[in-house]
């Protein structure tokens, strides 16, 4: 019996479990290396060369270069590790989080000021399915 993963039912969310962790090991370890100013400078000077020092998949490297955080999550990245890419770019956590939602930076900021994304309608895959149907 495989482990019960009830969190697979949460929409728009990737729970970082052992499976994701295995997938993203080198991606996340690369991110961790950006904790030193020296490595941040080396990465910024030549992203591709720096990434090639790590045993990451080509997909993972492309996702990093594209700053596609959703793709990074799908490929095993964890947000606290990925945040170090954003930090290296001088981005805030709000800019990073917003970039994954399909909203513009300003739209996301406004949504947060207005009280954030409601739980209502965002609790389950079924919630999102229903919304999609209504929109059609």
């Amino acid at each position, binding site marked *: 019996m495989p482990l019960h993963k*009830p*969190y697979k*039912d*949460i*929409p*728009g*969310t*990737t*729970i*970082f*479990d*052992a499976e994701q*962790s295995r997938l993203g*090991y080198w991606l*996340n*370890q690369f*991110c*961790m290396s*950006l*904790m*030193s*100013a020296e490595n*941040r400078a080396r990465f910024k000077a030549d992203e591709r060369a720096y990434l090639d020092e790590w045993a990451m998949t080509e997909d993972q490297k492309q996702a990093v270069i594209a700053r596609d*955080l*959703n793709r990074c*999550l799908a490929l095993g990245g*964890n*947000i*606290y*590790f990925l*945040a*170090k890419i*954003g*930090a*290296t770019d001088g981005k*805030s*956590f*709000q800019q*990073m*989080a*917003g970039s*994954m*939602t*399909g909203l513009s930076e300003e739209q*996301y900021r406004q*949504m*947060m*000021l207005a*009280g*954030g*994304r*409601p*739980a209502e309608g*965002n*609790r*389950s895959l079924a919630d999102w399915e229903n919304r999609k149907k209504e929109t059609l």
Partner: protein
Amino acid sequence: MARITAAAFTSHVPAIGAAMDLGKTQEAYWQPVFAGYEASRQWLREQKPDVVFLVYNDHANAFSLDLIPTFAIGTAADYPIADEGWGPRPVPPVKGHPELAAHIAQSVIQEDFDLTIVNRMPVDHGLTVPLSLMCGERPADDFRWPFAVIPFAVNVVQYPVPSGRRCFELGKAIRRAIESFDEDLNVQIWGTGGMSHQLQGPRAGLINREWDNAFLDRLIADPAGLAAMPHIDYVREAGSEGIELVMWLIARGAMADIAGGPAPRVKHRFYHVPASNTAVGHLILED
């Protein structure tokens, strides 16, 4: 004899630290957040704890994927400030309390909590933002925290994280350990992280004001019941990073009423949305 005199609970949003470090606390966006901690700073100055047992989580700064402890207790004499990617925060280094920390470690391991003992560990915003919020800016002529800190890091990054019930039971054991320490010390225990927030994926930005406030209500009045709540409820209702709230149950489990004493007094309660991506919740309970 050491005794736990109070518990404090607070979010540890990194942007709050950045706002303080960059002198933005009076900006319209941030002013209401810091207003919510004014009473707490006054209270803390009066309380003068000797030691704060500070429950938090590391955010991929001290611990990479090489090694992920479920519970890690710091028994070092000091802890450097982590460089999380933006450079280290300009806050004082953290002084530990090796004797009490080692005593707690020894006691709770003998009560079947399988701690990892840590003697070298940079501390990140999860620990320093609560210190900044509660202590205020540190003056250049007294650039140190006014008490010793025992860092207690909980894994809430890679699943599975410990259950609410496990955290609550651990809190009870920590209380017994602290109360069996010979030296006369005024100890506070802080639970940090939360409240509702999600930092990742298309669902990022989730906030659940109603659920957060119900959590605060139950934390005060029904902590044992609250400890039974499964992880999935946190994630579904309070966002993927809302899971950090399980850590508050460690601090709550260490209070007198759980050991058969009187109910705690609510000294302060505060709630605000937003700080960056997050709802800010804050509570002070006195024993």
